[in-house]
């Protein structure tokens, strides 16, 4: 008989200040040593579920609980946050905020310090934990020197050393580039195998988590568990799409080819699928692909020529970068963290200027323009909408840029109206900004930039931390701006799905150099570029190879087919 370490019985939870319950009738047993993935769209209650397990609910976020929850033999309501923290270790989503120490060693030691453990006992434990996550050479490094992935590792090390039998990961991949994400998934798997601890992962990037074996997947929607089964059964059932969770690409590609999987088939790993059986289906579907036609090229809007940039003399952030951006294009700037992506965006907006080389906007050298003037040609949307919203009302937020630029009253009214209609915010124009969801806020920030009617809009990680449904909503909206209003859209992202589905061209950066400027499908089938830019080979490449097709052509076909489907509804 397996022993349940987490046991929900008829459990419901309602936050103190909310009208309706966030979790309903949860009945769930998680057994010792299991590795579980909790999936579901944003706002479905999966983070709430996690916070119930680690004790933040009800101790930090009060509310009403009905039913019971037992964690490691403790009734959570009768226990305390501290008591629970001995049994449950949590790695949170924000790898930056949870790094509370001033060095790697200190942060790993934080919970030991809080237990008043003598330093002499602490040292070997910290060293061992750092060794497991491969950070032992960084013990004295301050957080300011670390990448997001490294901070995540430190956070993991910080909960490893306790007697904690349950490790909880709340969206661990959210801020990592694809290669770092793979490392993180691998590391979690290694710890699971070596320590036998119970692992609970909350994520919506299903394919990335399935890179390593998972015992069971829970699908949550509207605060209820809608499916609780093995990954194979989950993929076979086909319910993921209904609940706005993205299927792995190889599954989508096989389904496109009309493949019907068999019950009990191993689907969670492409290596285990008997591709031979589906080869004909894939080939015949591929045969229907249309020959590629190069679309008409718009006029050049931005020209970057041999640009160098550096913050301090001994380290070039960008080196000899040349590129052009044309009207009506959609392109992705990809590459690992710190490769120079955001520096390029800042250069384009004129916030920083090149050390050497030239940038021309509409043919004019932009050195003669002020940031304000450039802002009317190139708009920049930051990752976190909260960093951009300053006004209480949507209408005020949208007119702000126009007022700052001292447009005449008449024109402000007219532009604001146009923008509101363009972005579908017109019915909400008099709403307070605080009443909006994250996705709606994002839309308002884009609208506030659009009001100036720039030719180019640069968006920094537009889909970070959002589930497939919201993500699709935002991307469709941007697609629409691109198609119907001819706006050039530039994404800075490490989300390969986004790059594949919504852009035509990818600019790949590695160590300050532009290493590729090509069609997305070409970039993603080039092993060398993938490695240098910390990207990840998509499962489509593997599938193509197994079937015996050219990966490049296969990805192109897949992209086109997905787009067609999207356009047809």
């Amino acid at each position, binding site marked *: 008989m397996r022993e349940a370490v987490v046991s929900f019985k008829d459990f419901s939870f309602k936050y103190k200040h909310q009208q309706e319950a966030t979790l309903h009738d949860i009945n769930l047993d998680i057994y010792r040593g299991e590795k579980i993935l909790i999936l579901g769209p944003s706002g479905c209650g999966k983070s709430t579920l996690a916070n119930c397990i680690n004790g933040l609910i009800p101790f930090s976020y009060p509310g009403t609980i009905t039913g019971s929850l037992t964690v490691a033999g403790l009734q959570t309501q009768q226990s305390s946050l501290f008591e629970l923290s001995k049994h449950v270790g949590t790695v949170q989503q924000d790898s930056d905020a949870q790094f509370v120490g*001033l060095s790697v060693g200190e942060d790993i030691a934080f919970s030991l310090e809080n*237990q*008043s453990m003598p330093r002499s006992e602490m040292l070997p434990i910290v060293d061992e934990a750092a060794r497991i996550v491969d950070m032992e050479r960084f013990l004295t490094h301050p957080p300011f020197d670390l990448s997001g992935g490294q901070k995540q590792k430190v956070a993991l090390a910080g909960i490893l050393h306790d007697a904690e039998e349950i490790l909880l990961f709340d969206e661990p991949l959210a801020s990592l580039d694809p290669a770092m994400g793979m490392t993180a998934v691998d590391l979690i798997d290694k710890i699971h195998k070596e320590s036998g601890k119970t692992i609970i992962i909350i994520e919506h990037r299903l394919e990335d988590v399935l890179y390593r074996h998972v015992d069971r997947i829970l699908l949550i929607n509207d605060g209820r568990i809608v499916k609780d089964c093995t990954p194979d059964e989950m993929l076979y059932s086909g319910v993921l799409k209904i609940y706005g969770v993205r299927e792995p690409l190889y599954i989508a590609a096989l389904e496109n080819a009309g493949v019907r999987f068999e019950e009990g088939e191993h689907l969670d790993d492409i290596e285990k699928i008997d591709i031979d059986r589906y080869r004909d289906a894939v080939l015949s579907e591929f045969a229907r692909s249309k020959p590629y036609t190069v679309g008409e090229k718009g006029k050049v809007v931005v020209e970057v020529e041999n640009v160098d940039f550096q913050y301090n003399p001994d380290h070039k952030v960008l080196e000899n970068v040349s590129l052009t951006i044309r009207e009506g294009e959609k392109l992705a700037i990809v590459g690992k963290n710190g490769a120079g992506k955001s520096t390029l965006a800042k250069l384009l907006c004129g916030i920083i200027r090149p050390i050497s080389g030239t940038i021309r906007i509409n043919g004019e050298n932009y050195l003669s323009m002020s940031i304000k003037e450039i802002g009317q040609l190139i708009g920049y949307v930051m990752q976190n909408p909260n960093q951009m919203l300053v006004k209480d009302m949507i209408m005020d937020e949208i007119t702000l840029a126009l007022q700052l630029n001292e447009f005449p009253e008449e024109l402000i009214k007219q532009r604001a109206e146009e923008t509101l209609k363009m972005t579908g915010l017109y019915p909400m124009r008099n709403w307070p900004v605080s009443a909006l969801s994250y996705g709606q806020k994002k839309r308002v920030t884009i609208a506030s930039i659009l009001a100036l009617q720039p030719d180019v809009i640069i968006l920094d990680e537009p889909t970070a931390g959002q589930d497939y449904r919201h993500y699709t909503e935002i991307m469709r909206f941007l697609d629409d701006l691109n198609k119907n209003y001819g706006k050039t859209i530039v994404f800075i992202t490490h989300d390969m799905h986004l790059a594949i589905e919504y852009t035509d061209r990818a600019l790949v950066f590695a160590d300050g150099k532009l290493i590729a400027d090509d069609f997305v499908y070409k970039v993603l089938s080039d092993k060398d570029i993938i490695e240098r830019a910390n990207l990840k080979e998509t499962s489509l490449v593997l599938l193509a190879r197994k079937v015996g097709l050219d990966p490049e052509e296969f990805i192109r076909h897949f992209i086109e087919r997905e787009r067609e489907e999207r356009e047809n509804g």
Partner: protein
Amino acid sequence: MDSFGKRLFIALTPGKTFLDRLQGKTKIRLFFAFILILVATWDMRILFPILIISIIGLISIKPEWKTVRGLTIFTLLMNLFNLFLIWVVSPNYGYSQVGATTVLVRFTETYILSAETLWYFLVRLTKFMATFFVSLTFIQCITPSEMAAGLYGVGIPYKISTVVSLAFRYIPEIARDFNEIKISMQARGLELDSRKSSLITRLKQNVLILVPLIIVSFDRVGNIADAMDLRGYGRMKTRTYYAEHELTKGDRIINIVNVLLYAGFIAIVVVRIVSHREFLIWAPWVK
């Protein structure tokens, strides 16, 4: 190593010299001992040795000369200017402090330069520069974590010392947020150039940066609080510190020095109370 640390003259990673390797607790005790004595006395026989010791201390930790030099010159000039102003306002100020007037140069009837005034200025300058060097040495040789650990070590509640280390941890993040928000507002048309908009408009527009900064910072504070709760912060009445290493030989030596220094401080205070000197400052030639 990191630009933030350099800018604030603080080290985030511990150094390797004798003073660097002391415990945070020892460093704090030593610092306060010197500061108390420096506040308590105007006696050149005590001040001058401390000045020399503080300069030796500073040299011993091998600081970055570029930053130290600039700051030292600035402090020195400010002090000299201050003294000059005192002289301009009351040329025979030395009399009130030392109790005699030995004229060295007479410019006009009132404007004289006396040996006592010069002596007073020299004492005052020594006192201030010693305080400056002691503080500079202290700040340069202690990391924020050692400071937190040290404060806890000398009896300050750990919740307060946590505030110290958290401030150092998150101030640069807030500065970065501020910069990013400023940039995005500039691109939307915010004019921060002093040549193009008036001070009032610029102040008003700075509020536009503060609103999102406050909201983003509050989000961050919430996350930090959760992270600390989840790792058992505040679970117990006591706490230990990873950054506070075990007592070394150096610590034992300095702790003896500390005891002597505090005894010296008490002696100075007692002597001042008992002796009832009419004038504040001792000068070798004034009886």
